[in-house]
């Protein structure tokens, strides 16, 4: 669940009611949305029915796995709309089998949902009482999803956003094993998602597309069939060729789908979702909508605001004793990191943690290694107030900055005046950092088909990264950070048991996010960092313990801290160890090295 729940004032209830009226108007268009809504409804009902059958069958009955798989299949058919309407419950029903900490009550909810049930019936280590409880709660969640589908009429906006999310799920979650880490049904389920997309399409908007562009209709149907045939040709989770599937089979579908949306003329895209709906694939420069990831108070910055931010970013006068700028640690030539284990504070002593890259950092929902800040603005604020860093108060504007008189006009140009606090300084810097994005790596260019330079080893690396090494179940494609698709409402933190030194002898004593709630579950918990530009941003981990990607791979291959024999009872890695061969580890490293793009193109839309 999103721990950062922003609840909005009742002042706007009236506005909401007005919008509800619009909903009903939209449903009176010529498209038979009722078909699709019924399809989703029938399948969520079926998913519940099969869970009932599973309950009767028990945890280890001879048909348990069959009913589980049937229930999942039905769920996958209902998922686009069910989870669109209720992302939190949808994600919980089909999210990681990990306990959830409720920060409002301090309660720890036991793991529930399909992934926990999967563990129970495949591994048989769960008590009957717990298993029944898992079924009870999961059925309850499905009932909530069902009532959402019943209540809310499907309309073009809901339809196109929901389908976009489901296409994203296929390339990022289903084929990576995120959905089904134990049973590995995810590859087959991608087929179900595509088949149901076809059914929904044929029964809703196909007639419109046929009228306007018959060949687009044919190509789309054809591309879905080809993708399904490709999946059928190899259902094996370990060897499924995800690179080819995504590049040659899914990308054509997403390209078609964008055209279909435009051709239909049913919906004008919105600027409020994580996606740029006009991006033809999920591997473009503009796949993501920066506006969505930007705090509402700092959207649509002017070029002048960004330029001011850039100047401030490099200015040491921003810190109280004039020794530190943002660029002291985030050095452009070093991928906006610093290639140091840890950098130095304003008195020359080592800082607590390794400097992360700023490239693509805007696409996160929590910041710092321990994830304690919920926005880039809050993150920068805490650098100002940290007495080891800028050591100033956010509400106090530092006149030292104004020693450079060009700032006076710059501030007046951007904000109308020089404000008495640092909030405008922080906004400008945040706007600048939000431009430091790059999706022109070798990987991206190959995925887009702009070049064909991926070696067999790099392809293998991608396939293992996305497959049996389970890397992409935390480093989600294509951002490779921990911001969870397809809703991008939270950035995950994990406990992996990083050692104190590269000798792998003792557990690091940095407890990470634990400080916030003093909750054992959070001991050693850190945010999942991006792997983009990882080849140029060594050393690695929160404490910069590893200098090479080989060391990092070995750490995971051995099973993280738990595998090294440390006491890490709440480790969140979805495996005990990986058993990857040297060649396979090397292939993953080769793939990670294709994720480099430090040539920042300024593009702020």
């Amino acid at each position: 669940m999103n721990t950062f729940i922003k609840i909005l004032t009742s002042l706007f209830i009236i506005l909401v009611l007005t919008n509800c009226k619009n909903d009903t108007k939209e449903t009176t268009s010529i498209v038979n949305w009722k078909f699709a809504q019924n399809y989703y409804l029938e399948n969520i009902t079926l998913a519940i029915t099969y869970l009932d059958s599973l309950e009767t069958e028990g945890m280890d009955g001879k048909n348990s796995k069959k009913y589980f798989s049937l229930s999942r299949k039905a769920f996958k058919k209902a998922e686009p709309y069910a989870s669109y309407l209720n992302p939190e419950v949808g994600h919980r029903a089909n999210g990681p089998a990990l306990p959830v900490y409720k920060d409002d009550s301090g309660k720890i909810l036991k793991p529930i949902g399909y992934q926990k049930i999967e563990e129970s019936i495949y591994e048989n280590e769960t008590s009957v009482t717990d298993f029944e409880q898992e079924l009870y709660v999961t059925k309850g969640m499905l009932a909530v999803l069902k009532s959402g589908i019943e209540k809310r009429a499907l309309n073009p906006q809901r339809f196109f956003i929901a389908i976009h999310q489901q296409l994203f799920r296929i390339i990022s979650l289903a084929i990576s094993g995120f959905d089904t880490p134990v049973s590995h049904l995810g590859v087959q389920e991608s087929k179900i998602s595509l088949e149901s997309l076809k059914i929904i399409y044929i029964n809703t908007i196909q007639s419109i597309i046929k009228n306007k562009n018959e060949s687009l209709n044919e190509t789309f149907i054809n591309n879905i069939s080809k993708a399904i045939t490709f999946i059928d040709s190899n259902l094996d989770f370990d060897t499924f060729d995800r690179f080819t599937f995504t590049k040659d089979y899914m990308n054509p579908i997403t390209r078609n789908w964008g055209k279909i949306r435009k051709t239909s003329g049913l919906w004008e895209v919105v600027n409020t979702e994580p996606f740029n709906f006009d991006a033809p694939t999920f591997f473009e420069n503009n796949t993501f909508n920066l506006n969505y990831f930007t705090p509402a108070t700092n959207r649509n910055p002017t070029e002048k605001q960004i330029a001011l931010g850039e100047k401030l970013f490099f200015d040491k006068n921003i810190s109280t004793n004039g020794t530190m700028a943002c660029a002291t640690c985030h050095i452009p030539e070093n991928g906006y990191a610093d290639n140091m284990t840890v950098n130095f504070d304003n008195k020359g002593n080592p800082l607590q943690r390794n400097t992360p890259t700023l490239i693509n950092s805007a696409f996160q929902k929590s910041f710092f290694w321990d994830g304690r800040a919920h926005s880039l603005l809050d993150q920068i604020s805490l650098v100002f107030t940290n007495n080891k860093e800028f050591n100033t108060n956010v509400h106090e504007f530092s006149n030292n900055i104004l020693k450079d008189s060009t700032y006076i006009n710059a501030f007046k140009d951007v904000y109308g005046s020089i404000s008495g606090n640092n909030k405008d300084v922080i906004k400008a810097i945040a706007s600048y950092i939000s431009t430091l994005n790059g999706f022109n790596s070798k990987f991206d260019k190959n995925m887009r088909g702009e070049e064909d330079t991926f070696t067999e080893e790099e392809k293998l690396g991608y396939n293992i990264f996305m497959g049996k090494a389970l890397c992409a179940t935390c480093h989600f494609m294509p951002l490779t950070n921990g911001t969870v698709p397809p809703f991008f409402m939270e950035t995950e933190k994990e406990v992996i048991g990083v050692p104190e030194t590269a000798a792998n002898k003792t557990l690091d004593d940095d407890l990470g996010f634990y400080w916030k709630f003093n909750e054992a579950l959070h001991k050693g918990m850190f945010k999942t960092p991006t792997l983009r530009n990882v080849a140029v941003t060594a050393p690695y981990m929160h404490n910069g313990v590893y200098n090479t990607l080989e060391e990092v791979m070995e750490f995971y291959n051995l099973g993280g801290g738990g595998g090294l024999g440390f006491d890490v009872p709440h480790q969140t890695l979805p495996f005990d160890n990986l058993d990857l061969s040297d060649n396979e580890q090397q292939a993953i490293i080769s793939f990670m090295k294709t994720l480099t793009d430090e040539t920042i193109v300024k593009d702020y839309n």
Partner: protein
Amino acid sequence: MSKNEMETACTAVNASQFIRVEDVDYQKGSDANARNVFFAVTGLGPNSGDVNDWGTVYKLKLDATNPLIGKLTQIISGNTDTNNNDGNLAALQSPDNICVTENFVYTQEDPNSFSRGHASRIYQTDLNGNNASVLLELKIESNLSPTGSTGFSGEFGSLVDISDKVGVPDTFILALQPHYWQSEDFVSTNLPHNQGGQIVLLQGLPR
């Protein structure tokens, strides 16, 4: 609209965002008083970089003729040592429930997630958040905890004025939730709820 659609729509029109609105109440006594709406916001806890660490209470004075117009005032804030530095109650931690009567605002804390080193309190202030005093502080009974460890994981729940219902002036009921008071005896459904609690009667509390 779904919850997320509402949030998206509100964000799109730059609606004011609060960290977590926990409770709402209105001034009693007359229809005119009832247009004064109060709500409590918990805050995000220390060291998160946001503008509201320790929590705030707001008063929304609605226009007599047009409910779309009103004036929003922050009347209580615990942010005395934070970015905003606009607090007036340095001890305040996570206001969670509020009870508004004709003359007072009663604010109940929930120090469950993060604390300022004291157990849950109820503060009494006037309707503008001034003259704050501590009305009650939850007594920690570590003997009720199966582990003996409690932290500050107890809170006051709702405080409700029942004077008119029972015909006795200045009578309230108050929920006590010492979250550490756990026992299998409290489990009554197949949900894993095993915490005990009490509802107590308060008499003589000014309205």
